[in-house]
């Protein structure tokens, strides 16, 4: 069955030179595609988690008493929101990467402590995190001040009021905007291509550089993969939104 299918595509490649689905019958290319897809998934998941953590902590810090902390967060948001993510990636990897220490596992090779994958995760998380801070801040501002006052009048500390009352409400308000930003983040992970992170785009380009006849099918494959990944994410976010819905409460 599998070999039948592979034979079919091998034959198709022979008869139509633009439609070489090489990764369906060549195990080496198949590994490249699967490896690239897996890297894209890992990159996306890591950046999703870190960027949301940055968003929650940053939004909390933005209303801190310390002016220094507030302006630090503000500066961070402005910097990462107002510069292109591709340039951030290059800057992190090539500029900052020079100053981070390296180690030598065998006495010959110098391996930097933070790999290109590490830099990609850092840069993309900071990029999406800046937007998440603004998204959560808008959500926090939409929670009525009087609700927080009620929490405080019950003897809660600022942190208790934040974690028990403000944050759960903020999350519900922010979820649609958060989904949009996280979807964007998944789509932005392929810019890590520029610092040679072997994710889906990188592997796809390698494949069609080696086998130009595979270009059309590989582009098609990439589209399908991203559609699937982002589709899954937005489906999940939608489910979450429904699960968090409170009977009789706005939105």
């Amino acid at each position, binding site marked *: 069955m599998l070999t039948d299918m592979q034979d079919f595509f091998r034959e198709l490649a022979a008869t139509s030179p633009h439609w070489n689905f090489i990764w369906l019958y060549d195990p080496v290319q198949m590994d490249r595609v699967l490896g690239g897809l897996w890297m894209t998934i890992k990159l996306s998941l890591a950046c999703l988690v870190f960027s949301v953590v940055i968003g929650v902590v940053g939004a909390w810090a933005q209303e801190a008493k310390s002016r220094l902390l507030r302006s630090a967060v503000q500066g961070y948001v402005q910097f990462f929101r107002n510069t292109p993510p591709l340039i951030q990636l290059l800057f992190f990897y090539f500029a900052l990467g020079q100053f981070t220490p390296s180690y030598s596992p065998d006495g010959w090779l110098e391996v930097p402590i933070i790999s290109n994958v590490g830099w990609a995760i850092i840069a993309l998380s900071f990029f999406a995190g800046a937007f998440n801070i603004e998204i959560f801040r808008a959500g926090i501002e939409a929670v*009525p001040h*009087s*609700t927080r*006052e*009620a*929490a*405080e*009048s*019950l*003897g*809660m*500390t600022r942190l*208790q009021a934040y974690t*028990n*009352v403000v944050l*759960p*409400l903020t999350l*519900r308000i922010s979820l649609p905007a958060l989904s949009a930003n996280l979807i964007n983040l998944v789509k932005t992970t392929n810019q890590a291509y520029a610092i040679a992170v072997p994710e889906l785009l990188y592997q796809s380009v390698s494949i069609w550089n080696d086998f130009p006849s595979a270009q059309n099918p590989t582009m098609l494959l990439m589209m399908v993969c991203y559609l699937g990944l982002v589709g899954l994410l937005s489906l999940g976010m939608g489910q979450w939104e429904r699960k968090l819905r*409170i*009977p*009789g*409460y*706005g939105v």
Partner: protein
Amino acid sequence: MTNWTADQPIVRLRDVHKSYGQVEVLRGISMDVMKGEVICIIGPSGSGKSTLIRCINALNDIQAGSIQVEGQEVHDPRLDKLALRRKVGMVFQQYNLFPHKTALQNVMMAPVKVLKEKPAEVETRARALLKKVRLEGKENHYPGELSGGQQQRVAIARSLAMRPDVMLFDEVTAALDPETVKEVLVTIKDLAAEGMTCILVTHEMGFAREVADHIYFTDRGVIVEHGPPAEFFTQAKDARTRDFLDQVL
């Protein structure tokens, strides 16, 4: 601690001044509330009633004067505000329930999170409190599924769950429709009958007359007149008080 005893005023205000920017809202308020007393503060809107009550549990700060609760200075910067707020319960005009929690969870949250009591024990108490405010069977409803009067009674139960010594009510029936006002007032009346010290800002004159031990009339940031209800409603001395009473009665 302080050497406060129950024969001294539980809440004591002396010459309290408060302004928002240039606007002076409270211009020298003094008042004594004894344990178990029910105090009603009435007066035209904008006369500083709500501000006054919010100063008592330090939701607002004051510029001058002194507010003491059980002998403790409320606006002493060294005071543990959270400890104060555990002693002083507050119910708001807009209920301010936590919309993402059920009625029962609303009542349970503060004792569990703030007092670190065991959830099982708190739940028993919370259910009893909801029963007391006549909301049996509504434990698992969310605030959005309850009427205004029901929400306000959840809010009262939520404050009571912290076992406060004093309850503050800030125009708690002002946002309710007439039919539901009564159910909330009955709840407060029950509380008062049990000996809870209550300070209410209210526009419900009939209620004030019936329940209050003492009525304060404020206008433009000062107490114009005060006295027991029988005296206050029939023999007001000040012209402003009489004008006001003529309009509302």
